[in-house]
């Protein structure tokens, strides 16, 4: 396994764990308490900042500081990964749009907390999708050449 591939896998696993923790926090607590409960907000901030930080440390710093571990084949795979990122982000936004439209169309307004949730989920999905894109890139290259 290439060093970058290993890092992408680790960051995907850690990122998924943090994302699941984020979902659990929102499911187990009252979503409307987000605006008033500081503790709730701090937990969420810590979790959603954690995902991009893990991604930054494990993937981007590899590119910047350990150039010997990343060669032209790795860079080619990294350059293709944003396609998966864009697709994932667009898919996330479409899901949010559809679900919120369906739930709140009659009321004509949304709870403000959803703006935060849309931002958090888009950033988290974007970070996870880059790791996933790198892993898919290695898989496709090993399979098809």
């Amino acid at each position: 396994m290439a060093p970058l591939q290993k890092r992408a896998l680790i960051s995907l696993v850690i990122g998924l764990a943090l994302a699941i923790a984020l979902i659990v926090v929102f499911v187990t607590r009252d979503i409307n308490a987000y605006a008033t409960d500081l503790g709730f907000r701090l937990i969420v901030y810590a979790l959603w900042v954690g995902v991009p930080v893990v991604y930054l440390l494990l993937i981007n710093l590899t590119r910047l500081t350990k150039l010997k571990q990343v060669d032209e084949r790795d860079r080619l795979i990294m350059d293709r990964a944003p396609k998966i990122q864009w697709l994932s982000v667009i898919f996330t936004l479409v899901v949010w749009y559809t679900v919120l439209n369906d739930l709140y169309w009659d009321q004509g307004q949304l709870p403000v907390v959803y703006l935060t949730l849309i931002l958090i989920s888009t950033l988290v999905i974007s970070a996870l999708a880059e790791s996933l894109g790198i892993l898919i890139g290695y898989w496709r290259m090993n399979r098809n050449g």
Partner: protein
Amino acid sequence: MGRIENRIRRLRFDHNEMTQEELANRAGCTRQTIIALEQNKYVPSIELAFKIARAFSVPLEEVFQYEDS
């Protein structure tokens, strides 16, 4: 469409059984890229191709061949 073949594995053995790691270090790439090249699952850039040929001290054409299909 043509296909680019290589003789990297053969050349490694001809050069005192040079390891993939050693070739990777000489060519400035990772061992995984050498593995992918030997399995014909990756076509290198011109620069890497020259570096590999230089690592074996042979002309480029002795390492890589273009084959019409």
